[in-house]
């Protein structure tokens, strides 16, 4: 009886080892693009969004907003995603309380969408601390955005800083967002 238990444990361990080696083989083909970007975003709530493509690491023209060429749009402190209410794509987002470098896999599910203009995937105010006195928006440290892009690729992104573009007068015209991201071009969820 005891022997049987030992042998079944041995088989189980062997099976786990083989499974592990399988996934290790997969990991070899990871192809990630790592970037740090600085993007200018309109301050006024009546001005156009700035659209961004992770794949091309570039700003997408507003005329292209009806395509799947962009993944997220940003205006003031408002994120929109290319899906549901705002675009034809399949973009979704998760805001995770994990240090950027510690995020190694994108979750299988749980991605949020903009279901209405007032029900956005990324809630305004959820990712920054606003200082009423200095009017500074400080992205909370230790938070990582995980995006599924418009064309179903996975990205992890960290907002590093939000600064005001130097301006004359009181109301700023643009905000400068600094962020870094890792884009998994293979379509896999590992980073």
């Amino acid at each position: 009886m005891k022997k049987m238990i030992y042998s079944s444990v041995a088989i189980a361990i062997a099976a786990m080892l083989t499974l592990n080696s399988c996934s290790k083989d997969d990991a070899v083909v990871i192809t990630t693009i790592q970037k740090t970007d600085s993007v200018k975003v309109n301050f006024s709530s009546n001005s156009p969004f700035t659209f961004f493509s992770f794949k091309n690491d570039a700003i997408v023209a507003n005329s292209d907003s009806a395509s799947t060429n962009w993944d997220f749009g940003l205006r003031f402190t408002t994120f929109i995603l290319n899906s549901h209410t705002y675009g034809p794509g399949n973009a979704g987002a998760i805001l995770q309380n994990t240090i950027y470098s510690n995020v190694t896999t994108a979750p299988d599910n749980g991605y949020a969408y903009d279901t209405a203009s007032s029900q956005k995937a990324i809630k305004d105010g959820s990712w920054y601390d606003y200082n009423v006195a200095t009017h500074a928006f400080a992205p909370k440290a230790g938070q990582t955005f995980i995006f599924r892009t418009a064309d179903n690729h996975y990205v992890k992104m960290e907002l590093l800083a939000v600064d005001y573009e130097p301006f004359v007068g009181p109301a700023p015209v643009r905000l400068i967002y600094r962020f870094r991201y890792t884009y998994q071009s293979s379509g896999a969820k590992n980073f």
Partner: protein
Amino acid sequence: MRKKQKNIIVFGAATLLLALCQVSFAQKKFNDTITIRETVVTATRTEKSIGDIPVPVQVIGRKYIQQTGSQKLSDILQQQAGLVLADNPLGQSLQGYPNPFGSGIQMQGLDPAYTLILLDGEPLTGRNAGILNLGRIAVGNIQQIEIIKGPATSLYGSDALAGVINIITEKPDHNSTLLKVHRASNNTWGLTASNTIKTNKAALELFANRYSSGGYDLDENIYGKTADPYRNYSFAAKLFYNIDARTELRSSVRLFTQKQFNNYLVYTSNQPEAVDGSSNETDWSVNNQLQHRFNQKTNLVSRLYLTGYRDNATVYLQKNDSLFDRSFLGQFLVKPELQLELGKKQNEQLITGIGYNYETIDASRYASEKQFNSFYIYSQKEWLPLNNLNITIGARMDKHSLYKAQFNPKLALAYKPTSRLTVMASVGTGFKAPDFRQQFLFFTNSLVGYTLLGANELNNGLIQLKQQGQIDPSVDISPYLTDHSLLPERSVGTNLGFRWNYSNDTKINFDVFRNDISHLIDRYNLPFTKTNNQSIYSYVNVNRVYTQGATVNISQKLCSFLNLDAGYQYLDAKDKDVLQRIKDGAVVKRDPVTFQSDYVKAKEYGGLFNRSKHSANLQLIYFNKHHWLNARASAVYRGRFGYSDINGDNILDDDREYVKGYVLLNANVSIAFRNGLRIQTGSENILDHEDKDKLPNLSGRTFFVNCSLDLNKIFSKNKNNILQ
């Protein structure tokens, strides 16, 4: 160049002091001044000798105030061990303008809003975001300032968590006519006149003060002055009347008005525009007290106190004189109270009091005028189970129309193993009612567009915003329409310490304290936004913090003409929830330069912002043989303190988040003439410490001259006792 100048000043001051020492050594030793038994009323609500009080107490007498030469109460208070002049945590100095909420006294590491400020035992209204403008209290007629540390809620109710500062004005006890002129840098003028007439049965004191300042400018590149010019008037009349041998009436009225002249830049449709205008503060009070001693054991005191405060601020666009902004705050309080004192021996008294508050408040940022009432009852009993052991037990119940009844007890022990040593221990609870702003604010920022709603306005505000289409119809606001009223903030405070008169020349006070505060009220944002994508904020009870530390004060007579006072406070004040989150690995910082993220370690956490771990004060007083020449030098050290977060974790954990420690050095000399004339001259902030960005409330070096004249002395025959 600057540094050299500083060295010269320090060197000069040191030489002067040495010289004074030597001159006086040569003189004959003179008889020590008679030590007067200091009495304090604040600690127990009855007059009591300082040695018998079982809680930490500090007294600033009239003579001390005179020696500082200062006309500002805040300057006098911040020279005491453990009292720090700190900015209001709600605001921040910005773009060359000081913190709009001003600064106040931080005691035992608690913000200024947690210290109750009394004038002749009664509270002042009109706090701006928790801060009471101490400039409203004229210094010229203060008899003494009593500072009680540790919770005093069991006697005084709300706000007395850190302690109480009771400013007691002069008793009209002798005929006098005083004239004082104060002239200082920044075009500052102070004019004081007082007159006391005393008869057998009655005494009347009239007091008037005019004080004006031209303000100062720490940064010429920024439009307008850093601190705006202002002018204020104080009037007070006090009548003491002995109706019969057992009955005394004390009546006083007070009026304060201040006009501040504002001139600054605003931005309308992206263009800078100069505005000017003024803010007008008015503060009045009427205080009546009737005391009747039925017999040696029974004393009844009835009081009726009324006070009102109003602040109207209006600014106009300079170009066309059109109204730009108008705001106001009005407050009114009526407080009848009855106190019965039973017991023959001063140390075995039973005090019981009942009272009622009726209060109204109206402000431009609130939806409408609010009215409240509260009823309270307090009692305190003292025992002397042993000859040298005093036990005091007290408790107070407050029933307020806005929140549930608050019960606050206090136990204090004083043990006197020798006549020179008093060992004290006390524990008590305290509470602070949610302030009006946290409850009633209804305010939308016109520039950015966010909305702040007080907890009691949340329901109305959300419905209104939704009706106006400012909240999307799809948003479910129903979870926020339930009762969101705030609980009072609560604390438990413990004090242990001793007062030790080691010798006639050496006195040591030592106190260890710990305050645990729960239900601290903080701002949060609702999980949905307005249609303009801006947040809605409200208030909720969340934080738990503690403050603990030790204060030591040594008073040493160095020689027959030189006194040294030294004080030091060690402070540790932290947010317990932050400590827990750090422990859970939930606090992450991100370096603003390298953008490297990392978990915050417990040892990196510097505690609550705006608090110095170390603060100290030093005072050296010289007086010559006949007391006609006095000199005083004092230094106030404020150790480094947290200013604001820079690394995205909202807590103090980085060296770059601190303001460097600094020293304020003051010195003055005064000469008293036999005819009642007294002249004093000196300088404050001699080292000229300035920080236009982080300490705009601190003006640079200033100089002053004070002249006072006692007309009664001039005309009286007895001219010997010149210092009285």
